[in-house]
């Protein structure tokens, strides 16, 4: 499975990374170089019994439905790039009128 320039552009778009076209060929080469080493995995027999590889944890992991909230040592304005009236501001979405206030 070799990665193409198309794949890299697609993946870069998913990750919201702009790739300099001049850098693209070398990036494809690097990724293929790395992925080439991954081919060894395909030769290993695995089955559902092998498991999903997640670490067993002894953690209970649940919390009770109560506060207090985790405090912030500094106001949001101190770390936010742009705020107004308590809102974080971002450049307006081009398609906003379609989706109202919902995420896609």
């Amino acid at each position: 499975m070799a990665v193409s320039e198309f794949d890299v552009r697609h993946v870069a778009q998913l990750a919201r990374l702009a790739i300099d076209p001049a850098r693209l060929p070398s990036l494809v080469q690097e990724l293929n170089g790395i992925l080439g080493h991954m081919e060894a995995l395909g030769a290993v027999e695995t089955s559902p019994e092998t498991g999903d590889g997640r670490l067993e944890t002894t953690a209970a992991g649940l919390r009770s439905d109560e506060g207090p909230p985790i405090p912030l040592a500094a106001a949001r304005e101190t770390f936010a790039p742009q705020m107004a009236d308590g809102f974080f501001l971002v450049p307006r979405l081009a398609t906003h009128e379609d989706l109202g206030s919902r995420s896609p």
Partner: protein
Amino acid sequence: MSLSARETADGVRSGQRTTRSVVEEVFRRADEVGAGKDGLNIVLHEDREASLREADLRDGKSGASYLVNPNARPLKGVPVYVKDNIATTTLRTTCGSRILADYVSPYDATVVARLRKAGALIVGKTNMDEFAMGSSTENSAYGPTKNPIDPTRVPGGSSGGSAAAVASGMVRIALGSETGGSVRQPASFCGIVGVKPTYGRVSRYGLVAFASSLDQVGVFGRTVDDAALGLQAIAGPDPRDATSSPIEPQAYHAAQHDSLEGLVIGRPREYFPDSLDPRIRDICDQAIERLKSLGAEVCDVSLPHTSLAIPVYYIVAPAEASSNLARFDGVRYGLRLSGDGLEGMYEATRSNGFGPEVTRRILLGTYVLSAGYYDAYYRKAMAIRGLIRRDFEQVFAAGVHVLLTPTAPTTAFKLGAISDPYEMYMSDIFTATANLAGIPGMSVPAGAVEGLPVGVQFLASHFDEYRMFVAAYALERAIAGGAV
């Protein structure tokens, strides 16, 4: 720092030393070795005046209870450097990245809060590979850290700054973080002790995530005891980390035994391939002889899936990273660069905010998770991760307590010597397995090749750091005593 962490805490507690004098010594030593940007480039952020004020404050209110009860403040007055991917309210947390250049966390990581509670002072934040992605600390947006032992060489990575801070004698304890060997490998390169605890032993709350299922805060110590003290202060369950374990930590400092009678040490053959540098092999074998002479039983064992660790690691870690790093979008904190609309802002911010290695791994991780490739890469890698873990479980179940291996296949290499990404990744070949399996590991200085330190690695079963420390304390003492 000439005194051990324990001696420093005792000295401050008894009033023989002031916290201020301890902190002043840190900064004096930092200046001596050139810890700043123009020198070894160890420290990214510090506020010396604030640290001295904090020291004075501590000296002013030495509560009587702490005088008599060392357990209350086991690190009283002990200065600690913290890797720059661990959130601190007092100093910036940049993760060695441009995208967080001016970011100050509005909350403290659990490990930082615990260090403070134990009486320690956070005296600075140390340089690192950007978002902990690297094995040399050359991938920092703020320039590489240099190895104090030979400044033409790397200190290892990604926690190179913290390793160098301890190795150069600025402090006895520093925090790093591990995803695939980022504490143990630099410990080996810098000739100090580095511990990666069991996954879940130490809270990750406030550790900026690289690969969540592999990340763990680790500890550097000048000595095994320094590291034990540091780990003791930060270990234990945390309700803010669902993956932290409710199992209470053992008393690591109690692992000092005169005899190793009854301890079974395994020597996994896959970690001693024919291609291994024979000088490193000799150092490991010497260590084994020393432990044998103390009464340990040594046997050969096999961990057959070891060679798959790097391919598995470089699928799982970038996959998780690609998701973990999505939050750096310029919306709520950190760098924001404008572009064409919202999408342009995302791309400008992220493309300029992340360096080349981080970009490469995000692309790789996005790819292996994307539609059509998930089964062949991520699912497959996770299944094999299970096999790697099972290898360890079988060996430990067979009665082996601790494994001894080389920590890294090489000594510290020259700055700029490795440019091929995969060759750099192979630097983690002996360490990534512990992260994949979730088991604890540590590197202990065991010798030198051409003046460059070499560490041996101990690995133990889940939550059995104690036995690992037993072996580490014993080896350290044996080496100091010169007996083989």
